[in-house]
């Protein structure tokens, strides 16, 4: 315990250096801006800024991305409450009661409750992240290749169930991502695979142009076909921001419940911040003594989900730091960044790079505090960003993507990849395919292949030896239950699990 406290203090001493404070501030501001802007989410922003983080050290890059991720959760709620426009998917639920509160003249209270809830959730989830990640990393040091393979398979299987679109579409995307990951020189034999004589492909398909294409360019193309909302922006005065004593009393329990719930859901693969908000909203409505107020401006409907989405962010960092396996698309980008900085994420990371881990943890505290202090007084400034015309914003994003990709390797092939994957991302999303599993599989594909081949070597090709180990068996059982339980439940007519009603599914059925 004393060791943890000392490490955390050391983390604070690093995170409080002017340079890292600057990165945290930039991340928080950028995150809030992308959270406010509909269409461009934290994932797109992280993908667009990926190339620029190569100019920073790994710790600086992690601090910047943590700020963006948290900031987007804060920013998304602002437009949900004031304009009924969710800045990103995790803020959709906040629109329901947040906007109704604004209509009743309680916008300021909703914004404050949302910001304070996010801060409390951020703090709780960081504490959880510290405890769980350290504990899990210690256990994971005893894991062998079969365990890592089983965890990777379990993560991807859960992602298939929880992604938008049908499970078949999500599975195809995962296989596509794994197929892309096999391009390049085989790490064990040195034999070129799928390079077709193109020398530059020997190093494999770069993660950077694929991520920036699929989340940056595709997002721009997607936004072009959407109608532009020109809203008159409602001003909120500082006086309005203070909730009443009764509003505070009604908000704190949902904030704490949402924080715990969000952190736990954050550990599950898939779009955890989005799922966390829905689960929190439903549970708050069930627990409420006045459920009829939900949908008409119940403050619990803002406090719970807003805390849940922020806590899920902290939860999502656990598998990344403890196991080196990203369970969400945003964490795949973070993992890609670590790899671009020459770091090998995994259970050893906390031990070998304690400065990075503790500085990021400390910067999360600082970033959350910055967001709380910045967001409320500057709410009108952030909302006015919506006034920037889209026809100016979109070309700027495309240029950032183009120049960003070019600056890394000065490679024309990378630029072509950016364009090709931009179109692929746009086309696939247009027909209901979830693109996030593709990126996730592409990032963890090499790890899965390595661990599978090592496992087969160790066990002499005996699959039973790979499966019948305590952790592996648990993981494969989870996979089995995830896929068998929903059809069984449907067969007996008891309902269905979430994740079956995405847009792709709607298009097909």
């Amino acid at each position, binding site marked *: 315990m004393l060791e943890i406290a000392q490490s955390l203090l050391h983390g604070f001493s690093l995170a409080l250096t002017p340079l890292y404070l600057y990165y945290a501030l930039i991340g928080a501001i950028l995150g809030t801006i992308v959270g406010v802007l509909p269409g461009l989410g934290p994932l797109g922003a992280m993908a667009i800024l990926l190339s620029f983080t190569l100019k920073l050290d790994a710790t600086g890059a992690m601090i910047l991305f943590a700020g963006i991720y948290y900031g987007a959760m804060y920013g998304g709620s602002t437009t949900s409450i004031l304009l009924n426009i969710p800045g990103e998917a995790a803020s959709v639920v906040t629109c329901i009661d947040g906007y109704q509160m604004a209509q009743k003249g309680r916008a300021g209270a909703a914004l404050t409750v949302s910001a304070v809830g996010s801060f409390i959730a951020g703090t709780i989830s960081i504490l959880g992240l510290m405890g769980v990640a350290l504990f899990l990393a210690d256990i994971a040091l005893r894991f062998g290749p079969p365990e890592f393979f089983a965890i990777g398979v379990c993560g991807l299987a859960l992602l298939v169930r929880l992604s938008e679109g049908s499970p*078949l579409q999500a599975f195809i995307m995962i296989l596509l991502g794994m197929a892309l990951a096999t391009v390049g020189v085989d790490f064990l034999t040195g*034999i070129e695979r799928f390079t077709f004589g193109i020398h530059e492909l020997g190093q494999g398909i770069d993660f950077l142009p694929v991520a920036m294409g699929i989340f940056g360019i595709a997002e721009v193309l997607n936004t072009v076909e959407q109608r532009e909302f020109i809203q008159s922006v409602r001003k909120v005065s500082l006086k309005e921001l203070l909730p009443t004593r009764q509003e505070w009393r009604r908000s704190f329990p949902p904030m704490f419940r949402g924080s715990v719930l969000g952190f736990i859901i954050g550990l599950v693969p898939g779009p955890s911040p989005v799922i966390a908000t829905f689960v929190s909203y439903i549970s708050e409505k069930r627990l409420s003594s006045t459920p009829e107020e939900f949908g008409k401006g119940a403050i619990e409907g803002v406090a719970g989900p807003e805390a849940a989405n922020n806590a899920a962010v902290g939860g999502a960092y656990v598998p990344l730091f403890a196991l080196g396996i990203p369970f969400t698309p945003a964490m795949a980008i973070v993992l890609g960044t670590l790899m671009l900085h020459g770091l090998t994420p995994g259970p050893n990371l906390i031990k070998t790079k304690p400065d990075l881990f503790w500085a990021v943890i400390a910067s999360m505290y600082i970033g959350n505090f910055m967001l709380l202090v910045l967001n409320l007084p500057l709410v009108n400034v952030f909302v006015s960003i919506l006034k920037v015309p889209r026809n100016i914003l979109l070309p700027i994003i495309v240029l950032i993507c183009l120049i960003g990709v070019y600056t890394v390797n000065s490679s024309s092939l990378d630029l072509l990849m950016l364009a090709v994957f931009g179109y692929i991302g746009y086309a696939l999303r247009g027909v209901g395919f979830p693109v996030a599993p593709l990126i996730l599989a592409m990032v963890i594909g090499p790890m899965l292949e390595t661990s599978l081949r090592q496992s087969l070597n160790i066990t002499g090709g005996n699959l039973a030896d790979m499966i019948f180990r305590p952790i592996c068996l648990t993981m494969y059982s989870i996979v089995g239950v995830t896929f068998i339980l929903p059809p069984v439940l449907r067969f007996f007519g008891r309902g269905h699990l979430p994740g079956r009603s995405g847009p792709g599914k709607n298009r097909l059925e």
Partner: protein
Amino acid sequence: MGIHVSKNQKITAFLLFGFSLFYFFSSLRLKLGTFKNPGPGLIPLGIGVLLLLCTGFYLARVLRAGPPGKKKQEQGPRGEKNYLAIFGILGCTLAYPFLLEYGKFIVSTFAVAYVMLVLLKPSRTLFSFFLALGMAVGSFLIFSLLLGVALPSGFLENLLFRIGG
């Protein structure tokens, strides 16, 4: 209730199946090894088989389905698509690497930015011209002078370097 799919879904299903076939047959050319000692082609072959099965099943499902409902055909939920802007932006990203080779940074960035601005707001061509120029020069100053990135340089870039010191 029958399944309804659009033409785009059918095209996507065919392309995915085509890619799967290509990947599967390409993986067969790699050394497979044994289960005990897997070669570089074993995992790609496994991925290829699964891809082929899944995309084949998806294709069959899409081909069996009927055309989209009347309501869906008439108007999408997002309204009229600006295909010119979509394909224009895509064309710009595809053309940029080639432009960069011949036109160097400022000219190619200006050209791409100008085309995108005009496609998104055709009524303001003069404004777009100056905005694109500002974007090209501004990005050169930020990336080259401030961040020290080596960008393709010609006469204009060298001139800016001299002015910027």
